[in-house]
């Protein structure tokens, strides 16, 4: 086992272990914190695969942005308003069917795909430049569509969370 292998198994253990805590923990706060380690583990995989830009973006967006909001929401609802967030088992039968279908699909893809096992060649010192060029040339349309979708979501969120001024004035 080389050093890379050891690091790989370490990240694998961290990712899977913390992901298990996310799913099985009865305390929703521990779930939120375990998610932090899951994200870190995945970022570690990206680094091992030579995708430095994606790794750091994973930290920047998921750990630094989305998870902060998530943890914050959980903390506020759980302690300040003292509402117990339900984390029990619901609709076990339906869930079983959906989960087994999804798992079967993923497993099927996993076995049908021909995985490239050759060691990755580091063509560039960093992947950031190449990614940027590709987004601005070959993948310009998907890139723009994705950004428009995000913009719509942003405007929608602002609209929903805004107080209804007209109703207030009428009252």
């Amino acid at each position, binding site marked *: 086992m080389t050093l890379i292998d050891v690091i790989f198994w370490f990240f694998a253990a961290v990712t899977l272990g913390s992901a298990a805590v996310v799913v099985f923990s009865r305390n929703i706060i521990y779930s939120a914190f375990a998610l*932090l380690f899951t994200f870190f583990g995945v970022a570690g995989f990206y680094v091992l695969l030579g995708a*430095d*830009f994606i790794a*750091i*973006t994973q*930290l*920047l967006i998921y*750990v*630094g*942005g989305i998870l*902060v*909001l998530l*943890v*914050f929401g959980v*903390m*506020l609802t759980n*302690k*300040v308003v003292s509402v117990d967030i339900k984390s029990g088992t619901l609709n076990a039968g339906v869930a079983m069917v959906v989960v087994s279908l999804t798992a079967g699909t993923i497993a099927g893809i996993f076995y049908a795909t021909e995985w490239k096992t050759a060691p990755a060649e580091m063509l560039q*010192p*960093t992947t*950031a430049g190449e990614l940027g060029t590709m987004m601005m040339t070959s993948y310009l349309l998907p890139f723009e569509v994705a950004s428009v979708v995000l913009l719509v979501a942003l405007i929608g969120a602002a609209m929903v969370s805004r107080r209804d001024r007209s109703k207030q004035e009428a009252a």
Partner: protein
Amino acid sequence: METLIDIVKIVTVMGILLGVVAYVVLLERRVAAAIQNRIGPNRVGWQGLLQPLADVVKLVMKEDIVPRNAHRFLHDLAPIISISIAMTTFAVIPFGDSITLFGRTIKLQIADINIGVLYILAMTSLGVYGVTLSGWSSNSKYSLLGGLRSSAQMLSYEISMGLAVIGVIMIAGSLRLDRIVEMQSGWMWNIVLQPIGFITFTVAAFAETNRHPFDLPEAEPELVGGYHTEYSGLKFGLFFLAEYSNMVVASALITTLFLGGWQIPYAAEMGLSGNLLSVLQVGAFCAKVLLLVLFFIIVRWTIPRFRYDQLMSLGWKVMLPLAILNILATGLAILLIG
């Protein structure tokens, strides 16, 4: 051998950083006293120079009090997160060019990574956790309010901070911090090329470090002490240390990105070279950082605190559009002038 050099670099830089941070606290107290027409701490040692040492001893000796209903583990973890993030950010900042010792060229930067700028943005975005966790785990309304304000503030200003850096990246054409510094030779510092970027980044840095006039998370008259109200002893000391290290790191960042880093204008024309020049460049870097720290301190004691809604509207309605306009203007300039 490489590993040994790295370890020596890490230990040296960490030591210097911690020492500087201790003395920045003293500097702040003396400058504050001067501004308020007082004398300030001048009893311990000559001109109070041993005061930081006395403070550290005092903080270590104090009792560690944890509120009864606090979440013990997270309460302990929060200050550790704060201080380790403040320290690790410094790893990518180039504080000099390179130095030749015993026939071996040593780069004066701990970690020379390809995506240095993104690394810094990622690290600063993690800084929220220390504050949020301390605010929540203390189980106190003042702490929680402080933590709440801080997370909202840091998330808001992070965006304009990131956008302000994009102008610099566009000019340098690289995410490497050493490359960004190399591009700023002579007087072509980024503050000249990117004045708006400099202003937005500096304002965002003030907000990110929770310094005046953006120190709402720890506004004493409203929140007792903010997110660290329920901390005492060494754990409070760690928060204190983290705040001042953040200030030093932010100054180092502004220096690197906008004030030419370790560059000395016309150093090549003066006929300097080799190790002497490198040492002078490290000196220049330190001088620029210290001036910025002094600026941070003077701002704290001269400008009143913002109101919370003013802070948010400044962040979203002024800083963000300015930063976006700056990117557009930079792109246009690069297209026209090349």
